[in-house]
């Protein structure tokens, strides 16, 4: 393995790990924000609860 390849591979592992993680967090953030928006707009007397 040449130095350039090794450095590139090692750096990509770190950068890819961080970016993939951040992307996943951002996607979930958008989902939650959309849900919250929907909850606020159709706030009405609804009962999504199960009772035990």
């Amino acid at each position, binding site marked *: 393995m040449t130095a350039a390849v090794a450095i590139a591979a090692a750096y990509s592992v770190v950068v890819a790990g961080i970016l993939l993680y951040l992307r996943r967090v951002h996607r979930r953030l958008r989902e939650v924000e959309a849900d919250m928006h929907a909850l606020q707009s159709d706030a009405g007397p609804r009962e999504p*609860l*199960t*009772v*035990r």
Partner: protein
Amino acid sequence: MPHPGGVAAEAHGLARRFDRNVALRPLSLSLPAGAVLLLVGPNGAGKTTLLRLLATSLRPTAGRAAVFGWDVVRNADAVRRVCVYVGTSHGMYEGLTAQENLAFAAAMGGKGDTARAALERVGLTGVGHHPVRTFSTGMKRRLALARAWLLEPRLLLLDDPFSALDADGMGLVDDLTAHVKSTGGSVILATHEWERGVRLADMVVGLAEGRQVATASAAEVTPPRLRALAGGRT
């Protein structure tokens, strides 16, 4: 401490949920010492949750409760000293004999070893040295009552105590209730056998879907009303 001997159990806005499942919605009650409370309601009404909250087995998600003035969260240990919960499972070790089970309970509860006397109370003297594994369901329930007897509770919580018991066995529940009452203690009884339960009770609380739907003295509740409450209708 607020009036020891005055109020056996009290709750203010007591509630519990399990994540999204609401088991008990804010409930308030006050049970004087020496009184017997009957809890009625269909399956899933929140009876067991209320008993377990008072027994310190569960922690409330809202509100507060106290047993003889002791808060169930902050003074849980003091509550455990005076309160005994007999749940729907008998809580006995199948591999031990009846006698050994009760001796263990006495040791853990910090009581003297009165296993023999307790066994006699529930009519199990003859099988005291048999492993609980060989017992019928009714005999195990009797043994659970013997455990409660031995621990001398000031507040006794009985969850569905009449199930699997024969006529004599049911009489034992009556005896135990009368015994606790005679020592100035209180009993809370959750049962579907409301006709039997109401005869012991001074107070009735009806629960449905986690809501407190009725609170009344036992004398003023009519049988049709009680049947409706037990069925979850208000």
